[in-house]
């Protein structure tokens, strides 16, 4: 966890540094008439300072007891499943314009349900079809949202 947090801290530090460097390419102005770059420059520097302090605290300080309300980090039980879930979403999204909204809904539901463990083909196909039809009727027909029509033209 500490290693992960240090990596996260390093990324945030770099983000702050990058912000500061990019801000210098914008007009900085004066305090009286601040330019576009002044505020992000300060934020970049502040972020670098905060992340450096946090990093030092991680390396040399004692870990504080978690406060109430702190989110509990989930156990890394299904990293592959998360990647698969995201991958399917991204691939389906790439097909959205080509397939059109109803077919996209059917495809994404079918694939996501399948990877989450729904195996019975009739149930899988039926549920995907019903959800796609419901989403089409609600968003396209009822709410009149101009969602991509794709090949099918619906």
């Amino acid at each position, binding site marked *: 966890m500490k290693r*992960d*947090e240090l990596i996260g801290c390093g990324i945030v530090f770099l983000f702050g540094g990058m912000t500061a460097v990019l801000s210098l390419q914008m007009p900085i102005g004066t*305090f009286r008439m601040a330019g576009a770059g002044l505020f992000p420059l300060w934020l970049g520097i502040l972020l670098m300072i905060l992340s450096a302090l946090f990093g030092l605290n991680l390396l040399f300080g004692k870990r504080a007891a978690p406060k109430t*309300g702190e989110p509990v980090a989930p*156990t890394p039980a*299904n990293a592959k499943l998360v990647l698969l879930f995201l991958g399917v979403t991204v691939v389906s*999204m790439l097909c959205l314009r080509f397939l059109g909204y109803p077919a996209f809904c059917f495809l994404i539901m079918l694939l996501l349900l399948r990877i989450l463990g729904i195996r019975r083909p009739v149930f899988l196909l039926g549920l995907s079809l019903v959800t796609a039809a419901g989403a089409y009727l609600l968003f396209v027909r009822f709410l009149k*949202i101009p969602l991509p029509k794709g090949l099918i033209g619906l």
Partner: protein
Amino acid sequence: MLESLQHLISGFGIATTVANLLYCLLGAIAGTLVGILPGLGPIAGIALLIPVTFGLSPTSAIIMLAGIYYGAMYGGSTTSILLNVPGETASVITCIDGYRMAQKGRAGPALAICAIGSFIAGTLAIFGMVFLAPPLADAALAFGPAEYFSLMVCGFIVLSNVTGSSLLKSLMIAVVGLIIGTVGLDPVTGDYRFTFDSTYLLSGIEFVAVAIGLFGIAEVLSNVDQPLSNLEQKVIVPRFRDLYPSLQDLKTSIGAILRGAGIGFGIGLVPGPAPVIATYASYMVEKKVSDHPEAFGKGAIEGVAGPESANNAACQSAFIPLFVLGIPFAPPTAILLGALMIHGVVPGPMMISEHPDVFWGVIASMYIGNFILLLLNLPFVPFFANILRIPKKILLPIIMLFCITGMFTVNNSIDDIWLMILCGVLGFVMRKWAYEAAPLLLALVLGPKLEVAFRQSLMLSHGSFATFVERPFSLLFLVATLIFLLVPAFGWAIRRWARRRA
């Protein structure tokens, strides 16, 4: 005071039109569902339904979106009691005694007391709002950019102090949010900032995409990340005839409800995740004042009545800083600020005089919404409980589909969906590393306001930073900020000193 009551009566006239009643009902139902369903919270719920309100008047739109917020608080308690899984963070504390009551076959009275307590607390909070908001708005008219800047800084520090595992971590995330908020056109000079020649980034980062990503997609991914066996859930469904509390239950709870309402109302006015803090504070108070503190944790009805009343009162009074100062102190009200702006209503001290229909209409609708929720939550509990029986492996893909579709409807842009998915991955990684997403969203929404206030203050003072300490209210907010920053340091020093003495 009489004037406020007259305005409230006219607000009821607005809120009780057929259309507004319908939107209030829709918001309350959607909020209850959002509170019940895993993978959706009030923030993602409100963000998802903003596009649905585009064709509505500002009053109807905010009535519906506000209904989602306080409706989610009602819904969240249902899962806490029946499933021992809090629907919202504000319902965590309800699990302790609520689920114990359900295990003892008293799920019905627990749910009923939640609904009745929330109704009473919500009603009292609304009356508090009616009498507190107008004088506060008058006082806020004296605020200049320096006061607004100091107040927003104070808000960030307090929010960062009370969320997450570390102040430094939360502050880092808030600054990241402020930086993301600078993307697009400079609000003062009109220069491009961090757009990298992309036309998509010219109008800035779409906050709805960030909200749905961080709070909707990230929640879905976190659920997928659980072991598959956890995707199934066992729920206690109470029978309709067991739903009503006894007279003794009501007698035991009434004190807790009133105390919870007071605590919640006060906490809702200050920065931070008010409903969450209010529930913890109320639980502690109830345990302290109880004649039988040993019963807490084993199914004490006051342990349900107090916190649930507190979270509802806090969520209603959180509208005061939003409407009167134009500054949201928590992410759900930050999303509502975005929705108000989309509908052309700029919240702030002038809102009451410039948009009395929105202000008083929404306040009156909250009372009606509370009544609708009371009616919904008692007889329909078995129905909502049955929704919980739908396996997560079916719910999660449906939520994902709704997030994608909802995001597209905001600007009819597929780029927004990519941004949402990216923010979802970011939110998921942040959860893994125990970073709180709330400060990021709040900073993203408030960032441009903060920057404008900062630059205007310096312009007006000819570049002198003394303006922030010369103006009394600004100084007051900065002193409060300093105290909030120093409290953890003092605590640490005192503990260290005590350890050495021991």
